[in-house]
């Protein structure tokens, strides 16, 4: 079952809707290539696009090797050009069709500000904890049949009008509705969420429904991190009143509604921060880099 989006697999679930690129996002974490869901690693091994092209390159190399030596000259050159392109891709990991000038897969068209030096950035990278995505299986479903024939399904129509299905790897939960729409939650990265959604769709296929995989979209991303020092929430709500809501009668954390990017942060006295509301992981990183200097301002208090 293949996705029928026009976006290449690499950019799926990562890019905001077409045309909604947020301009001027600085690359504040040079070690963390966007949208690959990875801890710092050399760029070559992380890009799904580059893996596909790597496979193509290997196939071509094998094809080239099998050719007789008489055609070596032409083969060599035809084998050369793709290689050049691939190696370039491998080091800079751009979207296809864009000139790979900067290592910025997320916003290839926008001017890139130079990476901020490590001393200015916080050095802390929020960890993704949950991704919520949706996909349209494109056909009506009989939930009773699914609940009957799948082991990992739960269905209580009186309580909730959807089948709750779970798989072990990636460890996720899906809500499958009779309209054919599905919600997938619990993944720790965009790629895992898509892989999980594809597995659910396969289960539904094997149960006899003509399931497709339409309009896969990441709806929400949740991240968390720890600044490692306690925070005076009462002070923060005083200086940032327009963005903050701190009601200890209701909830021990401060709710900070950041405007740019549009992210909600839950800030706790222990220094732990939860960030949510992102459609792409860059928003989480940007929101944290915005809040970190503000939080540091509340560090030295008696």
């Amino acid at each position, binding site marked *: 079952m293949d996705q029928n989006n026009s976006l290449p697999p690499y950019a799926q679930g990562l890019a905001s809707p077409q045309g909604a690129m947020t301009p001027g996002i600085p690359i504040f974490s040079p070690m963390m290539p966007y949208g690959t869901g990875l801890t710092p690693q050399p760029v070559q091994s992380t890009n799904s696009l580059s893996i596909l092209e790597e496979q193509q390159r290997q196939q071509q190399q094998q094809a080239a090797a099998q050719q007789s030596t008489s055609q070596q000259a032409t083969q060599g050159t035809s084998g050369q050009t793709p290689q050049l392109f691939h190696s370039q891709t491998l080091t800079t990991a751009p979207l296809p069709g864009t000139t790979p000038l900067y290592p910025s897969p997320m916003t290839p068209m926008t001017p890139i500000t130079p990476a901020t030096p490590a001393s200015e950035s916080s050095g802390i990278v929020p960890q993704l904890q949950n991704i919520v995505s949706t996909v349209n299986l494109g056909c009506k479903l009989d939930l009773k049949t699914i609940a009957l024939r799948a082991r990992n399904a739960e269905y209580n129509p009186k309580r909730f009008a959807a089948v709750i299905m779970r798989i072990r790897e990636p460890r996720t939960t899906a809500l499958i509705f009779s309209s054919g729409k599905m919600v997938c939650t619990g993944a720790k990265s*965009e790629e895992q969420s898509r892989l999980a959604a594809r597995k659910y769709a396969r289960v539904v296929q094997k149960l006899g429904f003509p399931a497709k995989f339409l309009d896969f979209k990441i709806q929400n991303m949740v991240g968390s991190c720890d600044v490692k020092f306690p925070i005076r929430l009462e002070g923060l709500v005083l200086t940032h009143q327009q963005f903050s809501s701190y009601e200890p009668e209701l909830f021990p954390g401060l709710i900070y509604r950041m405007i740019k990017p549009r992210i909600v942060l839950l800030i706790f006295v222990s220094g732990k921060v939860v960030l949510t509301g992102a459609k792409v992981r860059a928003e989480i990183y940007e929101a944290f880099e915005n809040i970190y200097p503000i939080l540091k301002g509340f560090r030295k208090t008696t």
Partner: protein
Amino acid sequence: LAEVAYSQSTGQREQLSRCLQRGIRRVQDLCKVLQLPTVFEETAVSYFQRAVQHPSFRLVSLEKKELLGGCCVFVTCRQHNWPLTMGTICSLLYAKQELFASVYLSLQKELELSVPALSLADLVKTHLSSFRLFQPVADIPAPFLEDKEKMVARTMQVVELASETWLVTGRHPVPIITAAAFLSWQSLQPPARLSCPLARFCKLAGIDLPPPAHLRLKELLEILLSMASRLSWLRVFNLDKKTVVKHIGDLLQHRIFLLKNAFCLEGEEEQCGKGSPGEGSPGQGSPGEGIPGQGSPAAQGRPSGGKRCHEGSPRPLLPPCLIKPRKRLRTAAPSASDSAITGDEPISDSEIEQYLRGPEEVRAFRRAKDWP
């Protein structure tokens, strides 16, 4: 000719819907019950009118609309630093606190209201006013009666101390005030009152005992004991949670000095016995302190040379949740194999089939569930 009210003759009221009229009247009644200044009433009513006409509130349930009025009064009070708690408003409205909370948060967001934090000092005064310990009453023994001014003053100081030592941030304010009031009350006449437990105190005073108050009391006593260990003339006594109460007056008087000496400020954590969680070996002396011999810093253990942190293990001044961290629930960062997932991996049939029931299983399940 009878007098006609302006609102009637000009048809002012007819222009408003009945729901709006009723809501406005409820807001006005609330303000009267709470004895709020008249300017509050005008502000609250204007918020209410704005809110009810806002698209997100126009169609909410009647139950929520009823709470909306209370939320507007609540917001008005907070903006004027009038210490009204949500608990009070909820009990006046007979509202479920969760529902009130959700209406309040939506109101704050949709109308973009900035609501200042609750003023703890004012809340102390208001809360203590409801204590029945200041006038002679039949069931209260004479030694339990207390002077209101003295008690308010001391409770304020204890609450301030709690605030400085991270006991207030993120916590519900009322239990802290209850615990602080209890300690202040005990300390003003220890011989007669030390034997009275917190529950009895609350009953006599005619106030509810909020469940977290016991924990707050415990935390306050810990802080006071740490401070007492730094006061030279108290160190001779082996103070415990009961006896330290007798000296709260002294401790409060010298609290600035004592706080500095009893607790390590955050930057000096390395000097203290307990470093912050996750830190490496504690016991690094700061430069300039005469730590004899450079040995291995780890072996130094609790610093013997740090000028502040000697004798006993002064703990870092941190919120209680950081001093006693609960067991880590979150797993570590994603493993390398997790990170390599691209989302495009081929999915094997066998993997999917493990989730499907075989035909006999389906039959058995059908029988068990009694489905057709």
